[in-house]
């Protein structure tokens, strides 16, 4: 699975730590998400998408 989290994060000038705090996870989880090495729960995927003002479809490429 590929993600565009890094791209959207750069767009809104957010660090991994800031995004992690906003969605209530550890920074490490964001690192794993960006690398496509972790399948998030639907809630986390929704929270990340909402924080980055996009949709799950656009953020995660299956």
């Amino acid at each position: 699975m590929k993600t565009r989290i890094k791209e959207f994060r750069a767009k809104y000038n957010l660090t991994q730590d800031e995004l992690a705090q906003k969605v209530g996870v550890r920074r490490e989880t964001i690192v794993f998400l960006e690398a496509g090495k972790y399948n998030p729960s639907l809630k986390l995927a929704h929270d990340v998408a909402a924080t980055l003002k996009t949709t799950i479809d656009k953020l995660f490429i299956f």
Partner: protein
Amino acid sequence: MTLKKYNWVQFAVMAVEIIIINFAIQSKNYLLGACAVLAAVIALNLTRKKVTQVIADERDYQLAGTAARYTLNIITICMAIAIFIAMIWADKDPVFQTVSTVLSFAVMGILFLSGAIHTTLRIIAQQKSGLSAKEILSQNKIIIISLISFIIFFIVGFFISYVDRP
């Protein structure tokens, strides 16, 4: 408080706890040991509340679940081997008979607790999802029967092992 600081506090509490418990065992002051454990639990809980960062998230819980499953499997296999060896040695020294019995009950207890907690959590989740009591019962019938049978076998096994022994 940052997570890093919290980890250091945890480490310090653990170190102090080990020293106090060692002292308590050597001086046979068991109340001191119990009080130290209680104080450590309270101190860690209070400190935990002051941490502003996320201590654990869904990924950690997922890993914890996998770790628990592996731990359970490894413990069960190791205990089964130990029980088998103790039963073989029981002919040479009767102490191993007791060792094998205690280990057997310990393994049974761990497996039962794991199964019971898993079933309880599943039933709670099913209740939350709006399933009726009848549906929940029909979906968990086999597991509930297995757990009840397990309790019966446990009690019967206990009586055979201890009560009927001459």
